[in-house]
């Protein structure tokens, strides 16, 4: 339990939070990298999945992609970038690796959500004379929303958690606090860094649950 006490000392020491390698700077890097990666991943995955789901095509691709994605270690992807000239491109390698990591679950969840919309409801909407566009915006999208958000939430939490791995190849983010502690045999610092990332991941989950509730198109009727 001595470790816990010394971890608390580390966390409550102002000097550990300020400066280039300080926790605030690392937290900023972590949020920046995760945020940009999630935004790009959503911009790629969601329109693709929603279109494929609406058109009812490419199902095998959408479902299998997440299986393939799971098999590719982020660490290996990052390492591959680090042995190319991309290594001197700042946050770019980390962001690309995280986008590749986040796209498969986003795509699969959004696609499955679209396909699981009750066919009878879709037929009824068509029978009422809705165009493809109206059907998509007024029927399919609201009904697929919970599944899309579930995918978004789990992908975000996983991205925040996985951004830590960037530190293993010398990139920025909260993981650097952990690896720096490792290299100097400073266990309290390692534990402090780990706690910071875990708390951040849980915070992101909580914020997204709240956003989900606020934005839900079904919230008035449920």
């Amino acid at each position: 339990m001595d470790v816990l006490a010394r971890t608390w000392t580390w966390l409550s020491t102002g000097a550990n939070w300020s400066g280039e390698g300080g926790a605030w700077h690392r937290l900023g890097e972590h949020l920046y990298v995760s945020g940009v990666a999630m935004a790009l991943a959503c911009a790629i995955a969601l329109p693709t999945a929603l279109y494929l789901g609406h058109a009812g095509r490419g199902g095998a691709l959408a479902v299998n992609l997440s299986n393939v994605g799971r098999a590719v270690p982020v660490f290996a992807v990052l390492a591959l970038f680090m042995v190319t000239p991309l290594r001197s491109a700042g946050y770019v390698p980390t962001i690309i690796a995280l986008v590749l990591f986040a796209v498969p679950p986003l795509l699969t969840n959004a696609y499955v959500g679209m396909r699981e919309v009750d066919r009878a409801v879709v037929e009824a909407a068509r029978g009422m004379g809705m165009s493809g566009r109206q059907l998509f915006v007024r029927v399919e999208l609201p009904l697929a929303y919970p599944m899309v958000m579930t995918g978004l939430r789990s992908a975000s939490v996983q991205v925040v958690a996985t951004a830590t791995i960037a530190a293993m190849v010398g990139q920025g983010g909260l993981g650097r606090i952990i690896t720096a502690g490792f290299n100097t045999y400073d266990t309290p610092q390692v534990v402090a860094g780990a706690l910071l990332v875990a708390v951040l991941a849980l915070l992101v989950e909580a914020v997204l649950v709240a956003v989900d509730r606020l934005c839900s198109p079904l919230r008035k009727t449920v």
Partner: protein
Amino acid sequence: MAGRDCLVTNDWICGEYLRSRSQELIDATVQHVGITAAAVAIGLVVAFPLALLARSRPRFAGPVLGLTTVLYTIPSLAMFSLLLPFFGLSAALVVTGLVLYSLTILVRNMVAGLEAVPAEAREAARGMGYGPARLLWEVELPLALPALMAGLRIATVSTVALTTVGSIVGRGGLGNLIEDALPSFFKAQVLTASVLCVLLAVAADLLLLGVQRLLTPWTRIRAAGSRGAH
């Protein structure tokens, strides 16, 4: 001579690398497979009673599923670091971390699989005088097997990938080779180890798919029967 050059020119694909470091590659792969297999096996043994507990005592279902979900949000690097004070730099540390990750997927799928067993099947078995243990082993588990195996396959594939992060404590199987190659920008080693890692995951997935087909012969008979009927 041309073969030697590829190590000097640092090519992505290098036959000479494969030849001269084959023992290193085999050792890393064996460690990788060992850590993954141990983690998934222990994960199964731990997840099974947890799933049964969650099912038989609904009171525990929320906490059990909630706890395993929280475990999943802890970053792998952080998980391995948090376990460091307890295990030191050892393979047991990596295996424990991976077991904790596999629990989320395994428990969830086991509970879902057991819940999906048709109530009629359960009633029929009870009517035939099956006790709770025999009901579980001979009726519920076989019927829940497809869901269970699906969970096992996801857990195994993720574990193969996550094992690489174990290189932070020097026990990451193929991840060690990737980490060792980084300071010298040794392209052939990074690429070979990464490709081997993905191949391992695919091989494990196919192996488990084969096991599932062997364990559930009735699903094939049904599929063949319905094909014959058409």
